[in-house]
């Protein structure tokens, strides 16, 4: 929209060039009507017509980058300014005697002043002095006002208006052309904030579009109307003046009231919207907080899942290995045995075969334990005697002469627990103690139980080789981790019993000193 309006400057510039040319032709061929219009009116001077052509050109060519054209226009504008300023100086100080006939550059004082103003504006505009925008706008409005006054004077036939003291007379087509030129200059003005405001698609733009024309035209039209009424003797000048003042104030008050109401409504709406937004924002913040919390929970869950997955992966991997290797050993031994003749060697193979079988059985027992741990064991809860369980386990263990198992079950001889779990826990701790025994002393195992309400503390202490907890402490309850070469095993036992104990919030921990021994502390929670 604004771009379209701005293009109208070409039209305005072209129009003033046409008028200037028209008048010049009139002077050239002595066609009086062309430069004077009507015999009783003032004529437009040829100098004025020339200046109009220069100004029209510079308005129409705004925005064109041709260097030569710009230089020529600037020179022309300087000439226009000089002509204008000569008129002013001549009027006030009479240094030159510029008679119409001998000096073709003679024009009226008003024209001279307006040309000065116009040339300054156009000069600034061509050189893109942006800071001059406000000055330019003021000058344009001032020039427009003077030319409009002159036109009004012709319409109303008040000579005072078009040859206002101290201005001398101005031709009607000169005044019209000035109006055209100032309008063109207004449109061609760079960074024209006023034009942008008027054409803006905003509340302010809308307001300006409705109020500005009313504010500009209403007093003018009313004044003209009342003046006409006075002419026709409908009422006196005083009455018409009072009427003008009252009507103007009435119209202005009405407009201001209407617009204030609108602004008030809009502002209320805005405040409400802002309040709503604040509320929504607060809600959003809360939601965000919740979201973050959920995210955190999800992340934790994901981590747990990943760990579980990893454990399962290691488990399957190791289990397949632990199941396969004894079977393969057995196969190889069987093959060897078939080909062997020597009875002594056969016995050796048989012994190796037996230990392979045992290992396989151990692994399978471990796997059974895992299956048991996964399944529901509620039906196996009963009151169990520690001594009984221990006896059944010791029957399978191979203790050497001089080894001792010292028990202290007096404080807590019984526990209500899942029987397979308790068997597994005790068996694993005992076999560990036996496996990792010190090679050069008799094995001593202390087993102690203590009761605290529903909790039973079980302590299993040995005098074996010990574990380097600094190095392996974090791995000790992981599946398939073994820390010594000196004993066979699948490395699943401790992982398994930890799972069993922790199933109902119990705990297990270990203390150990290399060369002195290892102690496991379990806290079993009764079911």
């Amino acid at each position, binding site marked *: 929209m604004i771009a379209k309006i701005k293009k109208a400057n070409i039209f305005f510039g072209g129009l003033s060039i046409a008028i200037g040319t028209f008048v010049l032709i009139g002077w050239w061929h002595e066609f009086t009507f062309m430069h004077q219009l009507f015999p009783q009116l003032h004529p437009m001077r040829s100098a004025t017509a020339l200046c109009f052509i220069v100004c029209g050109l510079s308005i129409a060519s705004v925005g064109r980058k041709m260097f030569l054209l710009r230089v020529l226009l600037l020179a022309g504008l300087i000439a226009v300014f000089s002509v204008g300023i000569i008129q002013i100086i001549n009027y006030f100080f009479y240094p030159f005697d510029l008679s119409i006939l001998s000096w073709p550059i003679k024009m009226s004082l008003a024209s001279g002043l307006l040309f000065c103003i116009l040339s300054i504006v156009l000069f600034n505009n061509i050189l893109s002095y942006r800071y001059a925008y406000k000055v330019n706008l003021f000058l344009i409005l001032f020039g427009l006002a003077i030319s409009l006054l002159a036109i009004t004077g012709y319409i109303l036939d008040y000579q005072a208006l078009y040859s206002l003291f101290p201005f001398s007379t101005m031709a009607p087509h000169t005044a019209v052309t000035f109006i055209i030129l100032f309008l063109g200059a207004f449109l061609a003005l760079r960074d024209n904030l006023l034009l942008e405001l008027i054409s803006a698609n905003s509340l302010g733009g809308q307001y300006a579009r409705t109020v500005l024309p009313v504010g500009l035209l209403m007093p003018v039209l009313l004044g003209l109307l009342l003046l006409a009424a006075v002419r026709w003797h409908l009422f006196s000048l005083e009455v018409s003046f009072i009427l003008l003042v009252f009507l103007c104030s009435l119209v202005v008050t009405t407009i201001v009231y209407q617009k204030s109401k609108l602004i008030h409504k809009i502002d209320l709406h805005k405040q409400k919207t802002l309040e709503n937004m604040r509320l929504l924002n607060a809600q959003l913040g809360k939601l965000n907080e919740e979201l973050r919390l959920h995210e955190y929970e999800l992340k934790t869950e994901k981590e747990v899942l990943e760990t579980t997955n990893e454990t399962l992966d290691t488990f399957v991997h190791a289990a397949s290995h632990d199941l*396969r290797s*004894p079977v393969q050993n057995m*196969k190889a031994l069987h093959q060897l045995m078939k080909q062997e003749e020597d009875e002594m060697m056969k016995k050796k193979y048989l012994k190796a075969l037996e230990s392979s079988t045992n290992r396989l059985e151990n692994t399978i027992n471990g796997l059974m334990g895992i299956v048991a741990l996964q399944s529901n064991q509620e039906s196996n809860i009963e009151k169990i005697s520690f001594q009984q369980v221990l006896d059944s386990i010791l029957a399978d263990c191979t203790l050497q002469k001089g080894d001792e198992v010292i028990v202290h079950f007096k404080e807590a001889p019984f526990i209500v627990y899942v029987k397979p779990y308790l068997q597994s826990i005790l068996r694993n701790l005992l076999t560990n103690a036996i496996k990792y025994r010190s090679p050069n002393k008799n094995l001593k195992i202390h087993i102690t139980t203590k009761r605290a309400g529903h909790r039973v503390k079980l302590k299993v202490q040995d005098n074996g080789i010990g574990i380097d907890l600094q190095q392996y402490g974090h791995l000790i309850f992981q599946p398939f981790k073994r820390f010594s070469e000196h004993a066979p095993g699948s490395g699943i036992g401790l992982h398994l019993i930890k799972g069993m104990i922790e199933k109902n919030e119990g705990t297990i921990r270990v203390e150990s000193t290399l060369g002195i021994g290892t102690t496991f502390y379990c806290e079993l929670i009764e079911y």
Partner: protein
Amino acid sequence: MAKILLIDDDEINNFTVDAILKRVGFISNYVIKDNGWDALDYLKAVHDSTDFPDLIFVDINMPEMDGFEFLERYEVMFWSQHPHTKISMLSSSISERDRERALNFMSVSEYVYKPLTESKLAGLLS
């Protein structure tokens, strides 16, 4: 006549391999170590390069130092001086991941599934 080093923590496996090696004729000497540290110490102690093993069997699953860790150390310490020594991974793992990882080592030439038999051994030494 080939010289062989076997590294495995599984006693029974070592026992069977021992029995097999005793039976075949084309082995001049063989050494069995039950962990990687001992094996590295043994290799370090070999001064005469004609005594260096021609074939090394390494198990993957061993406590303290597993087969892969042994390989990393071996490649740094010995491989450049003894490029003709073949290394066979010996494993009962059926995991494809282990196999790939093993064969990615420059020094590893074979991946052998347990148990080791006379025919497999003959194939490796031919």
